[in-house]
């Protein structure tokens, strides 16, 4: 009896003293690093890059394990996070489906404001690409070509209702164009389909189109950023064309709902370290990402604005 009592008190004491001794929260098992897209696209590349930086610099005591859950325009990953068994060890690498998918599919019951903001790593601009054999040199020519094709102009992008289709939907509305939109499984497949001329235009992110841009197979005609991009100085912005529209893909890390404050602080510090690393800064420059650091409160504000924007854009698409 005595022994049991002593043991019980001892265990209780351990239990009490443990959190105090470990004021710094640390992950206790491998971290489920969920990716909101299939393998090979922009989000996937970024997730694996971040994983490698964390491994190389030994920033965590437990590894990040990338886990592709791209199904249903990211719905699969949102539900996975919402129902996470262990909120303190579940992170999501997001893109804009984070905003768009819950709006398009209210039946999923996802409220993104319950998720835990961790880090905004940067934003990825979009550009309009055509194949070099199309002979199209300027955006004006492109608009003429599409109009002349009268509904037979084929463009490709990621799933319907995802970023690419939103950009194309805006373009077709602004210029009164008829486009045939073919959805593919991820940005890598879209880039290859354009290189093989299965489709006539895409709005890939610079990172996705880079291989075929370097080889000269594809050409940027227009960018959807606020300013012209350094990598493509000759491509005008849509704003210069007189339309007040810019669109970026968010490259942000989000924690599962119900993550403890200690764990959230730990991950926020971790990703701040990744963000400030030479590797990440170099990656953003090489892949033409725009730096855009935000802390947790700023992210929540940004989410609100983006949800409103996407509400308008998606209503406009119907």
């Amino acid at each position: 009896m005595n022994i049991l009592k002593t043991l019980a008190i001892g265990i209780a004491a351990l239990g009490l003293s443990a959190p105090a001794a470990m004021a710094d929260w640390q992950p206790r098992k491998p971290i489920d690093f969920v990716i909101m897209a299939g393998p090979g696209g922009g989000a996937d590349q970024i997730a694996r890059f971040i994983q490698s930086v964390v491994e190389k610099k030994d920033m965590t005591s437990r590894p990040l394990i990338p886990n592709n859950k791209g199904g249903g325009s990211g719905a699969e990953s949102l539900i996975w996070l919402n129902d996470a068994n262990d909120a303190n060890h579940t992170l999501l690498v997001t893109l804009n489906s984070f905003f768009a998918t819950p709006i398009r599919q209210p039946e999923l019951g996802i409220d993104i404001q319950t998720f835990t903001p961790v880090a905004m790593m940067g934003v990825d601009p979009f550009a309009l690409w055509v194949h070099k054999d199309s002979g199209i040199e300027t955006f004006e020519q492109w608009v003429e070509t599409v109009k002349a094709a009268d509904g037979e102009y084929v463009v490709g992008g990621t799933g319907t209702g995802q970023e690419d289709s939103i950009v194309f939907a805006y373009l077709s509305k602004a210029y009164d164009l008829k486009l045939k939109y073919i959805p593919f499984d991820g940005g890598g497949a879209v880039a290859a389909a354009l290189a093989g001329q299965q489709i006539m235009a895409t709005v890939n992110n610079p990172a996705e189109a880079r291989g075929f841009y370097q080889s000269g197979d594809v050409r940027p005609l227009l960018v959807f950023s606020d300013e012209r991009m350094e990598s493509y100085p000759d491509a005008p912005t849509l704003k210069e064309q007189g339309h007040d529209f810019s669109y970026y893909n968010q490259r942000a890390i989000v924690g599962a709902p119900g993550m403890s404050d200690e764990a959230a602080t730990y991950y926020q510090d971790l990703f701040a370290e990744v963000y400030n690393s030479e590797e990440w800064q170099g990656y953003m420059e090489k892949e033409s990402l725009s730096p855009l650091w935000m802390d947790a409160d700023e992210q929540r504000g940004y989410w609100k604005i983006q949800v409103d924007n996407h509400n308008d854009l998606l209503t406009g698409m119907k």
Partner: protein
Amino acid sequence: MEILSLLGDGMLVAIQPLNLMLILIGVTLGLFIGAMPGLGSVNGVAILLPVTFLVPPGSAIIFLAAIYYGAMYGGAISSITLGIPGASTAVATTFDGRPLAMMGKARLALVAAAIGSFVGGTVANVLFTGFAPLLATVALSFGPPEIFALMLLAFATFVGLGGDDIAKTVFSICFGLVLATVGFDQVSGAPRLLLFDLSGFLGGISFLVLAIGVYGIGEMLWTLESTRGKITTTDAKMSVKGIVEDMGETARKGWKGTATGSFLGFFVGVLPAAGATPASLMSYAITKMLSKNKHEFGKGHVGGVAAPEAGNNSASTGSMLPMLTLGIPGSPTTAILLGGMVIWGLTPGPRLFVDEPDFVWGLIGSFYVSNIFALLVNICAIPLFIWMLRMPFTVLAPLIFVLSVVGGYAAMQDMFDIWLILAFGFGAFFLRKFDYPLAPAVLAIVLGPIAEPTLRQSLLLSSGDPSIFFTRPISMPIMVIAILLILMPAFKYLRPRRTSAAE
């Protein structure tokens, strides 16, 4: 000639002491990773990716490619000895590998798998060396209609796969196709067939889960039932002479399968979105279709082991091609390799062969070296695997059960998958009791997720006009062959009736 000198340089890179050591470690690790159910090359490469930061990029990808290679060899081992596919790429190897083992010919099956893998790998390496840039262009010309036509061709070969009862084969294909649609729809993003509203179905049914259930648990139950609890051991004696004899038998009976698998596998591997699993299944189906002794397949034909193994090794080399030259991964494993390349600062794309020749040719050179090493390590390890089979089935059955459950959990770390494995295991057992062929269902769940989106993309392209499949130069001949194959049983059915009427 220029290619040969580049390849020579690449070989020199591959046989540098560091790289040679990495290749040896990689293929050995890969062999065991592949042999463990649930731990496929995907997991192996993912787990070991961080290790590669210790060495230069060229050596890193050589190491990972060696693991990939080793795992392709290793997957066959548990398929043959335990009847549980070690990896999804080795499912087709169970079709004939397991029956051979049950007949006491496990050694022959293992040798056939090793030889098939080696030949498949070698053919693929030669094709890769000689025609990489050309094939990359061909792969780009495969749009949605072409890929759909190819999938239809694969489905057409199933009809020959299920045996005589075509109705049951068609049922099995349809059943597999239905299972393949579970989860989110790629085109519209809508969730489909979430049976009983279980959120576990959101991610779709993983192919590995189905395969472990059907072939691990289902096969175990079947063996238990057919032996009625009698203690059975598989007799397989080991000797060097025996291995040499088996090599001879593989060459005689398995050469057709090996050749089919080597060439078909490479081609399927090169196509984006396909990969080694469809390649091995299609190699099996086509080898069986072309064989004169169709009835022997599924009961222990050497060609039925050599074909899928040649196919998956060939395809694993082939799938490196779209990864390197187009930046699209042909399989989940190459997706991780692709991630690795981004980290090492290399941009996959058409320029890679020009900008980074040392890297590319070092990698190609390492394929040749890895292939030889993998063969040697595998042959040396055969006695070890045969020894496992000496265990009585009363010991082996619980072991299979545990490995199936653990392997199923390891893949996605989701308890839901384990319940599915058990359900599929029991379901498969009963379907088998009623003589339903299971292979077509397994094939359908692999190819369904490729066929469905490409069909819909094609029809979107043509605004709903199916003639798109017959007006494009590559898809047209493939479609015609596929349709003829599907109609063949009908012709066969009509012909004997006509002759009997004439009598």
